[in-house]
């Protein structure tokens, strides 16, 4: 098993898929020189035709990716979450809606890699964690990895998937190291993580903590801390939000009777809200305590570290929420 950095896992996934399938190409701003890092060295290997630097025209090139996908290409578009507003129409009116509204005629194997740069003083215009908004809109698969191995395996799945996918890449994890199995170690000879299969990160009996993106790691840290107080936490990482593996969450709550959801998105209509609502409906009789949402404060991201640090879920907040569910 190789120790791989998160951003390197992105790069590997893209390179491998570009090698495997000629119809895969990448486009975005400043990707040839890999300003954001993930596309390093791809120009050299794959050439200018398959590594396209675009003008500052998100709506235009998001849509061009839709069009290319309709006629047999597999575009992988790089952007930041906060630039998606500019190209929103193509994501919603075309990518998400087209297949259904054309009665299944359209097939759109397009991937949008949307990086979430938050937590580092990027301020309101560069820090969106917007996946809940896209969850509300039917038609988009939503992928949100929490470690290098999942990042690689899920991005590869997304590129092979025939539906439009948005991969939300948590910028706070870009430097994270983790084990990524070598292909030779894998039964299928390659790392593919399927959609809709949550990972039980660690088993536990007292409370279930569902984490999203970087919050998975905070959940594990919280579990470690709570273990010292004799509290046993089951940590679950959904890995994809559309499709969402509710069975794994419900089964866990059946066992623990308690649920905390840690989600870096703003708390109103968040992924945490959705998961809470599912369990309040389908897992209600298993619940022994109120569900706790640990999501971001409902404010824009303040620039100053003095305030920004208050906004997101963290280990401390998760620990406190678990204790609330246990009334300790």
């Amino acid at each position, binding site marked *: 098993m190789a120790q791989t950095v998160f951003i390197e896992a992105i790069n590997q996934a893209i390179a491998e898929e570009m090698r495997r399938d000629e119809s895969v190409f990448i486009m975005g701003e400043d990707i040839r020189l890999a300003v954001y890092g993930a596309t390093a060295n791809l120009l050299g290997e794959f050439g200018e035709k398959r590594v396209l630097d675009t003008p500052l025209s998100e709506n235009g090139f998001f849509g061009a990716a839709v*069009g290319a996908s309709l006629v047999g290409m597999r575009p992988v578009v790089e952007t930041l979450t906060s630039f998606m507003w500019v190209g929103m129409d193509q994501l919603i009116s075309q990518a998400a809606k087209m297949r259904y509204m054309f009665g299944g005629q359209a097939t759109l194997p397009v991937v949008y890699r949307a990086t979430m740069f938050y937590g580092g003083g990027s301020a309101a215009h560069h820090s969106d964690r917007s996946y809940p908004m896209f969850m509300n809109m039917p038609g988009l698969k939503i992928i949100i990895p929490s470690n290098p191995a999942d990042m690689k395996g899920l991005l590869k799945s997304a590129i092979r*998937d025939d539906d439009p996918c948005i991969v939300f890449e948590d910028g706070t994890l870009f430097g994270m190291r983790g084990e990524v199995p070598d292909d030779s170690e894998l039964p299928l000879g390659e790392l593919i993580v399927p959609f809709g299969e949550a990972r039980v990160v660690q088993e536990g009996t007292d409370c279930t903590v569902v984490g999203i993106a970087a919050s998975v790691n905070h959940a594990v840290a919280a579990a470690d801390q709570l273990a010292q107080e004799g509290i046993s936490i089951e940590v679950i990482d959904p890995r994809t939000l559309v499709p969402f593996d509710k069975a794994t969450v419900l089964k866990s709550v059946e066992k623990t009777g308690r649920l905390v959801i840690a989600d870096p998105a703003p708390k109103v209509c968040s992924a945490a809200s959705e998961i809470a609502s599912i369990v309040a409906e389908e897992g209600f009789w298993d619940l022994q305590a109120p569900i706790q949402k640990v999501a971001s404060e409902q404010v824009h991201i303040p620039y100053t570290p003095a305030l920004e640090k208050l906004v997101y879920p963290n280990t401390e907040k998760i620990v406190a929420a678990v204790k609330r569910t246990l009334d300790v």
Partner: protein
Amino acid sequence: MDIDRDTLMQMLRRMWMIRNFELKVIEVHSAGEFTGAAHPYIGEEAVAVGACAALNDTDYIAGNHRSHGHPIAKGGRVDKAMAELYGRVDGYCKGKGGSMHLADFSIGILGESGILGSSVPVAVGAALAAKIREENFVSLVFFGDGASNQGALHESMNLASIWSLPVIFVCENNQYAVTTSYATTVSVEHVSDRASAYNMPGLLIDGQDAIAMYEATVEAVRRARAGEGPTLIEGLTYRFEEHSLGLGRVRRGEYRTEEEIDSWRQRDPIVIHEDRLISQGIASREECDAVNAETQQEVDRAVDFARNSPFPEEADLYEDMWANPIPQP
């Protein structure tokens, strides 16, 4: 340009097909056979028919809300189109799309779009694929004078130009966006004047003249296939009917005068085309009338087809959401 008789007659046939389709749609819509918006293309037939006559089945088009003319001009089937308007399973989109979302991917019709300007980047993307794969299909997109003010147009024309993509931008300038005159919303005299801002040819064409549209598009297609990049073609035209069926609120006199409408009706694209065919001895009056009659019959059959097609089943609701299906929430 020397145009062969088959092409000229096919243009006539498709113009009549659109005209008769739209007349029938108005009839059955006002009889309440289906509801929902529908935007008649009557008066503008030469634009789509002339343009599409320059394309092959392997070329792509994309369109907008005024959506029946484009697919028929590209060779789409009126029975499947009509069944779609009736919301039936045998419609082009199995009843899921309706009037504004006709599409036939089997012959390059990438679909109409109800969001204005929104299909333009998509068409650019199809052309991008041609370039990356080094294939020689082209892509053509229809949009209105109103939609030309969308930012999507600017981004798309710029992208197509810098990448020299085989795409043809066809502006159907019927001079109004619903009730709003293009003179009050477009800051240049003609939409085609904007081509220079994208370093591409911009042609102002008589949109009532199918042959003129055809010739302009043939040249644009030639450029596109030769790798010379995109072209903007503005077809100056007029819609003879109101903006959409069921838009009764606005009385026409409030934004277009009767005189203006009448004067444009004098320039009926079908009449212009037939007159030319007859005067040049390419077809007789009888032959032209026969085309009208045949297309009328085909449209009548399309209505029968539509009426006899069943509505989708409840179980179809979640079909067609995904190519690689996932459990529904």
